[in-house]
């Protein structure tokens, strides 16, 4: 029997009950959420359950929602069942003041690099990560550039006038 979004949702609800919630399927991609403390339990269940077998971590990234007070940072896992060729998206949210998340490196080797990247750009602190340091940006960078409180432009440049870039006004 082919694996469908309904079966995955049913299996998750059977195992975790109310602790896994906000099920939806935008564009047919099953998306759900849990508290951040549950992330390893849910990932391990998705990995090891013989009906689900989500053994491939396609992507891991973060999203910053500055207006979502107390839950500013979302960490998103994209998992792939290679046998049934079906994907799920799993989100957890955390407070930006204390962005501590358990690392998934014990479960997926691929998470090592992706968690470093997520730390690099959003400052998510993955507890238990073997080598949590910057990977893409310069080592001496002292902020997390994809958090929305930081402007896109490089503030060190003062002679680049916005008017020359079609944005109107001036940076002064």
């Amino acid at each position: 029997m082919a694996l469908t979004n309904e079966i995955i949702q049913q299996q998750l609800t059977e195992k975790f009950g109310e602790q896994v919630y906000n099920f939806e399927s935008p564009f047919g991609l099953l998306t759900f959420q849990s508290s951040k403390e549950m992330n390893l339990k849910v990932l391990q269940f998705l990995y090891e359950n013989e009906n689900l077998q989500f053994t491939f971590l396609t992507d891991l990234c973060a999203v910053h929602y500055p207006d979502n007070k107390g839950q500013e940072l979302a960490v998103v896992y994209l998992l792939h069942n290679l046998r049934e060729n079906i994907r799920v998206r799993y989100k957890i949210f955390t407070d930006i003041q204390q962005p501590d998340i358990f690392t998934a490196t014990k479960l997926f080797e691929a998470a090592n690099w992706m968690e470093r990247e997520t730390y690099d750009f959003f400052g998510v602190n993955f507890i238990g990560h073997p080598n949590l340091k910057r990977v893409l940006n310069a080592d001496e960078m002292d902020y997390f550039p994809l958090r929305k409180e930081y402007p896109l432009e490089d503030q060190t440049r003062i002679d680049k006038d916005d008017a020359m870039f079609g944005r109107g006004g001036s940076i002064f």
Partner: protein
Amino acid sequence: MRPVRFNIHPKQGEPNKSILMTEAPEGYSGQGFFTTKLSDVVGLARKNSLWPLPFATSCCGIEFMATMGAHYDLARFGAERVGFSPRQCDLLMVMGTIAKKMAPVVKQVYLQMAEPRWVLSVGACASSGGIFDTYSVLQGIDQIIPVDVYVPGCPPRPEAILDGFMKIQELVGKESIRRRNSPQYTALLESYGIQ
């Protein structure tokens, strides 16, 4: 198919007016001898045998490849020999976006070049960061190394690169032989943290 014509009235070339010849420097000549300033001779020799070191990171590098090709042919200006060893080259041509992580590499390449050395910054990105107003891109290579000539454009056409190269030749030809020992030059390098 319609034939493509660019000129309705084809023009005859005027080779005597359009070709730039290298003149001998000012001096005093007589039977079997010629005297002139040493700096003029050195300048003449240097400017017509520059060895460029291409530091090409993006689309400006593709334009540079066209510039080196048969059609535009940078070799006409004595820059036939593109070296890929900084220690033997005179002219650093930085073409393309330089990320902040790449900045130390550019600087090291510059430091490895022997004096006298010149820098040509080709394109908007190398000159100012270009459209990349962002945390990861260096906002112009003049933040890390001194630049002699900037070529605008995104990317500049091969003609523009040639023009920039000729501007460099002009600087090289007129440069005083003592310039690199002058306190101003030392101060310039010191402002970039170079001894």
